[in-house]
């Protein structure tokens, strides 16, 4: 698939659903038999929308997120990001889509321990072959308040600082979609609130479509829409704001 094709397709549907999930099923085979994780998920998320996926542990939230982001493949059904059906693509094709449209924030930060804060943020830019990645990465680190910690390695940073680096890394490519998996799950409430503030600020600045998985009702309530999962099914997809 050519890059031009991806670009054109994305432009065509930019006004429509940014993420479209159709009849998505995920199950795994265990010794006890088949275990259903997600069942017949139908979902459309519009450009610029902020969506929280909530639900109890084991309800399938993180699995849904990883399928929507193309990190994993469904058993059945399809996922389209920016009009591109990523479930039809091979891993390379999905990687290409991710590098162009997607940013990530993980609960456990997932910074590369061997890289400095600056290098971690530069990484997605380098992969997208952006020129002058150094400056852009530095600008964003300064934006998240870590301008003085550029050369620090992840193990020299606190949890909150690491998540700031992760946010900078997520936004540095100005992604169209940001997937966040329990972004405050590993942080205390004060630091968590600060990170959330920063996340929404950056999201607003970059006009990103945000999909986040959380247990935190307060965080979920800041999103435009809340999707509740129970035993792998969507039970509620109400708007939180009118």
């Amino acid at each position: 698939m050519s890059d031009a094709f991806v670009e054109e397709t994305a432009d065509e549907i930019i006004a429509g659903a940014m993420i479209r999930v159709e009849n998505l099923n995920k199950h795994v085979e265990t010794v006890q038999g088949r275990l259903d994780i997600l069942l017949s998920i139908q979902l459309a998320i519009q450009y610029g929308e902020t969506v929280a996926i909530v639900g109890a542990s084991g309800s399938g939230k993180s699995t849904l997120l990883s399928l929507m982001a193309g990190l994993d493949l469904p058993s059945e059904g399809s996922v389209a990001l920016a009009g591109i059906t990523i479930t039809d693509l091979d891993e390379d094709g999905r990687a290409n889509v991710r590098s162009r449209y997607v940013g990530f924030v993980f609960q456990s930060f997932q910074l590369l321990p061997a890289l400095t804060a600056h290098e971690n943020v530069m990484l997605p830019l380098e992969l997208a072959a952006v020129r002058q990645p150094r400056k852009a990465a530095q600008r964003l680190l300064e934006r998240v308040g870590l301008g003085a910690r550029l050369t620090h390695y992840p193990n020299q940073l606190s949890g909150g600082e690491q998540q700031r680096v992760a946010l900078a890394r997520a936004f540095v490519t100005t992604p169209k979609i940001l997937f966040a998996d329990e972004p405050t799950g590993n942080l205390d409430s004060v630091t968590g609130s600060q990170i959330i503030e920063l996340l929404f600020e950056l999201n607003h600045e970059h006009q990103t479509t945000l999909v986040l998985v959380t247990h935190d009702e307060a965080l979920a309530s800041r999103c435009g829409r809340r999707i509740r999962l129970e035993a792998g099914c969507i039970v509620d997809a109400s708007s939180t704001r009118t």
Partner: protein
Amino acid sequence: MKIISLALRLLMRDWRSGELSILALALLIAVASTATISLFGDRLHRTMTLQAAEFLAGDLVVTSHSVLPETWVKKADQLGLRHARTAGFGGVIFNRDEMLLAGIKAVSSGYPLRGYLKTTTTDETEEVKTNDIPERDTVWVDKRLLSSLDLSVGDEIEVGEKWFRITRVLTFEPDRKGNFYSLSPRVMLNDMDLAATGMIQPGSHVHYYFLFAGNELALARFKKWLKPQLNPSQRIMDVHEDRPELGTALSRAERYLGLTSIIVIVIAGVAIAMATRRYSERHYDMTAMLRCLGAGQTDILWLYCLQLAMVGLCASLVGCLIGWFAQEGLIHLLEDLLPHRLARPGWGAVWLSLSTGLVTLIGFALPPVLRQKQVSPLRVLRRDLKPLPPSSWLVYGLAFSVITAMLWRYTNDVELMGYIIGGGLTAMVLLYVLTLQLLKQSRRLLPVLSLSWRFGLQNLSRQSKSSTAQILAFGITMTAMIVIILVRGDLIETWQAQLPERAPNHFALNIFQDEWQAFAKQLQNEQLKASAFYPIVRGRLVAVNGADVHTVVKEDSQGGRAISRDLSLTFAETVPVENKIVQGHWWQDQKPGQVSVEATLAKSLHIALGDRLTFSVGSQRFDAAVVSIRSVRWDTMNPNFYMIFSAGTLDGYARTYLTSFYLPADDKSALKRLLKTFPHVTILEVELILNQFRTILRQVTLAVEFVLVFALAAGLTVLFAAVYTSIDERIYEAVMLRTFGASRKLLRSSQLIEYMTLGLLAGVLAAVAAEMITWTLYRQLFDLSYRFNGWIWLMTPLAGMVIIGLSGFWSTRHVVNKSPMTVLREL
């Protein structure tokens, strides 16, 4: 008890999940290869020693000019040793008017204790092997004696005062000494007839050889008991001293096998260290959880040490079993090439392998496991909290101690160990610093490189310390592999050069001065290629700088033996082949009165350059000044000389000539024609000795070849395993890159670049280290001449790139084919 059952349960769980497979595999390789090499080497060594003992006709031989004290025989009986004796002396044999000086040898029943005799009844019938000796009143004689005295089998001859009937023709004696100048036709008789010949009188010049054979332990005890009781005229002979050409080959083979064992252990040790590190790091979370649940540091330590011990014991036992079957299988495969009578595998070798496994495990695996003790319970909250690394002293100290202990076991030589360890450590430190700098400097290149090169190289340079450690580990393994390839090649080449295909198999002695040219011409006519003709003057060294030689040297030393008999003195214009001047210089002019002395004799007699040596030839004396000291290769079949004089020094003394030539086995008629034309010349056939020697060398070569293949296979497996143990971090990084959208091509090419660079650097490092180590080994251990090996510098980095590059590429292949979530879950 609770800890043991918990350790067992955890072990079973890890085993099922495959966590232990690399560690167990590395251990298994170490033990299985050590066991195979030890068992096979031990069996071959014992078989070869047995064969070599056949050259002496016994395992241990004492030479003496007098009869052995009865207490010695009793002691031998007490230790369960078999014994026999031979007595050799010169005597004249008459047949009607003909007479001949013969070498008479009386042998007791049981002779030969090792090997066999070969005899025929007539020339035409086939020779038979036998362990019998002549019956009483009969003798077995050489063909030469029959033709010289015009006798045949069934005739009678008079030896001293007794008549004997010739019953067989003697064609082979295992212990016929290679003193080419005094070989006379043999007459062998029964020891019980010796007294009746009346030839042994007080003062007679008789050489007694007392032969002993039995198990190694009893022999060692006997030798220890015997040594202090020997008088100056008595000497213990063994294969290393009295067959230097074989002894050297055997010592080298033994050392090679020993060296290979150490190398396999080092290779496996590196893999064990890497595997345990991975195993340990993957258990930090569990340890943190156990600590949270109340386990103390000591409990944790016990838990892991117990698991390690269990793995070690199981892998060592299975490894020994595999080693046992592997060597049996190998011996079965090589059945046709090996001697029929092979020594049984020794339990000692099994114990050695078993203990090697456990010791190697402790030396290389303990430090990473000890880190578990440091794991903080806080890790359950902060996963990035890693325990403090173990002290470098502990890590390197333990591995160092294990290698030192192994080296000591195989070399028993402090100086040599010093060379190897000192050299190895210096090389490693230098190379570590060099590699570290190289990696750091390579960061400067990054901005101008393409993305895949940048990712590949920056993975190495960003973690320069751990990359350097890995490069060193791969480098050590590759160094070890090159060293054994190099040493093997040069050993075999040296052995083959020692005995080329058409090596002289006949020596012609006692060629008179006025007929040597005619002799040379006849050889030429018969199309037989002869070596040089060496003039021989028999004479003794009597004084050094005017002082009687007997005052400067002990009787039972090499020098002592050399001055108590006639030496073969020769002269030459140029340095003979395989002789090397170690001090002084070869004569520039051909002035008479100069001598070149063989190095070990010079040392034993305290002879230095410029000394004046006095020789006696018959009743005359002459002096010569020492102008050079030569080292001589005694392990060849060529004639060698202690004393070589400048031309003119030996003029005026009666001389004979000596030469050697190759005669094909099926062309004995040429020999008959030679003997007919030159009846005085003694022709000595050394074909049988040569063949026996060749057989042993072939077996030694075979052992060396096999051991090499095994060690290389172990090395390659371990290299691969080592790559595999270091991939977790790389996979994680690759998955993260994948998550951010890196393409398959980018990932694959950067992984390939990373691993190939790793292999390239390890290869360069291995080439440097291998050159340094072989240089030391050749000079200090194998006594081989070192030469620069250009191909190593090309092939090793290339091989490193290919092997490590492909192993790494293969190990990480699934990262790009699977979805990131699947791979992350597997880590």
